[in-house]
């Protein structure tokens, strides 16, 4: 048994305040998935390359496999589980991923959508190049980037009150 004392962490996850005791070495991804049962954020590479574990922390996209839960103490977190509109309908981004076929196997999708969410908060009307640069930390092993970019463009258009005319590839 561990002799290291557990430490208290408090955070707001998808609008809900949670408080737990954790081992200091607990990674945020394990805390989310195993303590909070939020299995949307995925464990892909576990080496901070793939971005499948991306969540939003205080308005920043972070790779939750490379962060201790303790570092997120007092933070506000949003995971894919918190992305839908308050009434349960799909957010513009989720709708975009559906309409533009922005997923194939779907493994990267939670990370892609959470990253795109933060990107659009910072840059509500990005160019295609800015989208590609902005999701450079998220890998899609199906290589479905064309439609992922279109999905984000769809969401940006919708949020800016425009129709998105392009069709999915």
């Amino acid at each position, binding site marked *: 048994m*561990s002799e*290291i*004392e557990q*430490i208290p962490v408090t955070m707001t996850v998808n609008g809900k305040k949670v408080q737990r005791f954790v*081992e*200091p*070495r607990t*990674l945020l991804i*394990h805390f989310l998935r195993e303590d909070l049962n939020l299995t949307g954020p995925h464990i892909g590479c*576990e*080496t*901070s*390359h793939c*971005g499948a574990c*991306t969540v939003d922390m205080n308005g*920043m*996209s*972070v*790779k939750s496999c*490379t*962060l*201790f839960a*303790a*570092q997120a103490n007092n933070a506000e977190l949003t995971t894919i589980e918190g992305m839908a509109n308050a009434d349960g309908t799909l957010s513009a981004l989720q709708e975009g991923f559906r309409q533009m076929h922005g997923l194939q196997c779907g493994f990267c999708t939670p990370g892609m959508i959470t*990253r795109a969410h933060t*990107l659009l908060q910072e840059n509500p009307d990005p160019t295609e190049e800015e989208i590609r*640069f*902005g*999701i*450079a*930390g998220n890998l899609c092993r199906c290589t479905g980037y064309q439609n992922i970019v279109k999905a984000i463009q769809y969401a940006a258009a919708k949020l800016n009150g425009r129709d998105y005319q392009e069709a999915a590839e």
Partner: protein
Amino acid sequence: MIPGEFIYHRPSSVAEAVSLLVSHGDEARPLAGGHSLIPMMKLRMAAPEHLIDLSGVADLKGMQEVGDTIVIGAMTTQHELVNSDLLIAKLPIIRETSLMIADPQIRYMGTIGGNVANGDPGNDLPGLMQCLNAVYVLAGPDGEREVAARDFYEAAYFTALAPEELVTAVKIPTPPAGHGFAYEKLKRKVGDYATAAAAVLVTMSGDTVSSCSVALTNVADTPLYAAQASEILNGSTLDADTVTRAVAAAEAITMPAADGRGPAEYRTKMAGVMLERALARAAERAKG
């Protein structure tokens, strides 16, 4: 991959952080953005018994211009460097370089202090800091001392930083308005370390170089300030012959490892190519 056990500390002042480092010695490691240290801990290649999270030390944040120097707190993130109006106006090469570090998620967490203090030859900011002739402020049990970036790096992961010291700030002399600059980085893919990279800062007086500074990234155990190349370029008109001689002088000081990024000879050559491109772009940007 789960790291070994450790006791977590979150000091709120530099003095408190230093005193934790002093009392736990080699068993303690400071945690900045964590994107070098945490992966090493997950691989159990690092197993500190005490982890000292610096994110609660307010004094390590932020940046300001003090006289003719820009002072950047060690815990300033690369995302903050990229978006700083002060740096965009006075030191745009920092934005240009920071945008080539890793990916957006990592730039939200990665800090200037961690990047320069870790001693990883693949990091981009150490070479840039040598080019800019920055000075690192180190806090230890006996107070503060300053070490020039050009004197800081000894070998891969070996630096002038003592185990009980912290990098608290980076001080950069503000270059003259109208200076030219460029950071050219060859990499295999987004997020990769450089196969080779070159930083150039140049001021022109008409067609003549009135000052020039060159440094290279990831083509030796340490970043390389290319003193001789800088000297060759100084006072020149950046004519083809001078550039060729400067590139040769820069290539001569490289000692790259052969790895997945290519054989040593190739990386040396690419350091030269990066320098040539950086020089051309910096000269184009300079308003003399």
